[in-house]
């Protein structure tokens, strides 16, 4: 479904975001990406829908190269990829319904969307999406009247209304309290299970990753250092991903053992 071929990303200031990534994510997986802040998790995610440009390599989404797509084809690939952000990224002054409907703009001509002429099916789709995340009664509320958890559920509804086949979630629960965190993660889990939408989620919390993921990818310094089922992600593996190891390892990163030795 999503294939990375030798993908590298170097930021203009010389920082290496991603270093020669090769990975294939399958349809219907719930992939959780873990790693330290600045390890490249967010870059990895944002390269998939090209919010960030890669400097090298190719990313294939649903059989089409997004890294080479231009103009309309690029917009159409993006249309199939929903995205959920840490800060929800809703238009706070607009109504919940309008925010959800904005997920539909990729399906219509610019003129129609600007005059707000969404067909009835689109509105039904938006209401269904809101119903799915239990936010239907707030459809006409302004987005900034909602709590953080509610706003995040609206942004999930936006991705659902978009009829995305893949949902990328960049730290979706980082600014939420434990209770709403569970609600949002459960929503993502149900969507993944019941609708078969592929989930690629960046998380800080290892506990959450273990609870929800079917597959875990550990990123460290722009490289994938672990990729496998959650059951294989032992404490040693996580220590390696987070560079916690022994004190000596921490102070002398160049002396760190390769992952294989740690696991054995």
């Amino acid at each position: 479904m999503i294939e990375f071929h030798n993908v590298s990303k170097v930021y203009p200031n010389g920082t290496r975001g991603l270093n020669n990534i090769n990975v294939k994510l399958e349809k219907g997986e719930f992939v959780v990406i873990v790693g330290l802040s600045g390890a490249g998790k967010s870059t990895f995610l944002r390269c998939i829908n090209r919010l960030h440009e890669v400097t090298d390599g190719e990313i294939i989404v649903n059989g089409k190269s997004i890294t080479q797509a231009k103009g309309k084809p690029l917009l159409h690939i993006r249309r199939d990829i929903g995205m959920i952000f840490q800060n929800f990224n809703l238009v706070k002054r607009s109504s919940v319904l309008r925010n959800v409907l904005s997920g539909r703009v990729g399906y219509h001509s610019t003129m129609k969307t600007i005059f707000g002429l969404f067909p009835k099916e689109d509105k039904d789709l938006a209401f269904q999406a809101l119903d799915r995340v239990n936010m239907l009664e707030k459809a006409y509320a302004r987005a900034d009247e909602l709590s953080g958890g509610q706003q995040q559920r609206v942004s999930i509804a936006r991705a659902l209304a978009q009829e995305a086949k893949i949902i990328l979630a960049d730290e979706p629960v980082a600014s939420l309290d434990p209770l709403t965190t569970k609600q949002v993660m459960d929503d993502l889990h149900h969507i993944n299970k019941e609708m078969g939408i592929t989930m690629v989620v960046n998380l800080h919390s290892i506990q959450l990753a273990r609870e929800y993921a079917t597959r875990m990818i550990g990123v460290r310094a722009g490289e994938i250092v672990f990729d496998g089922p959650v059951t294989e992600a032992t404490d040693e593996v996580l220590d390696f991903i987070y560079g916690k190891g022994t004190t000596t390892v921490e102070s002398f990163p160049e002396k760190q053992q390769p992952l294989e030795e740690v696991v054995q």
Partner: protein
Amino acid sequence: MSQTKLKTDLQHLKKPSRSKTYFTLLLFVVLMIVSAISVDFSFQKLFEGFPNMFNLVDKMSPPNWSYFSYITEPMLETIRMAVVGATFGSILSIPFAILSARNVTKSKWVLLPTRFLMNINRAFPDLLMAALLVAVFGLGTTAGIIALSLFSLGIVSKLTYESIEAIDPGPLEAMTAVGANKLEIIYYGVVPQIMPQYLSYCIYVFEINIRFAAILGLVGAGGIGQFYDTNLSLFNYPNVSAMIIYTLAVVLVIDFISGRLRRSLI
């Protein structure tokens, strides 16, 4: 070891010199004195001229109240000019504001020429612009309306593009991810975020247009200013004071209403 290291560090760490601040201050004082001398400014003249002010007030009173009915029509014309000018200018400023906002327009080849045009427009002295437009379009309100439109365009486009640059980039990112094109991103990501400010600027520019429109007549660009010009040159001070009171009242009422409107927007 760390103590000796700290000492050597502190030796490197010098207090930044303040000579730059003092020098700037000195330069400013010198500039001010030189300017005052070269324009022949003197406190003596200021005090000598002061009694003339009372003299003028004396000549102006009592105001010619009956003149009110005579100048109502030009006053209405002034307000109409301000409304039309503010409307044209505000509408025209939308593309300018969008094309000169760095977070929306990424291309320097579009951004810089747009900003350059806007700067030229703002740099032009307003009354001089109006005088030139009178030379082109002839005496009357057409020149005045165009001058007011350009004046409003300069103000609204500048304020709006600064507001656009300060918006939350999140919704733009979200709309990009949704697969929206540039126009859709602007319409769904930018417009709802700046709408209240933009409308507030439109009303604000209407407010200052009234004041500007009142003097436009001095260069023959229509409105009540023409009557100021005539009455002043005929030394008809009671008429002038009636007009000043009238203008003041209109401006105050409009300021009050527009202030109320703008507060309800934000």
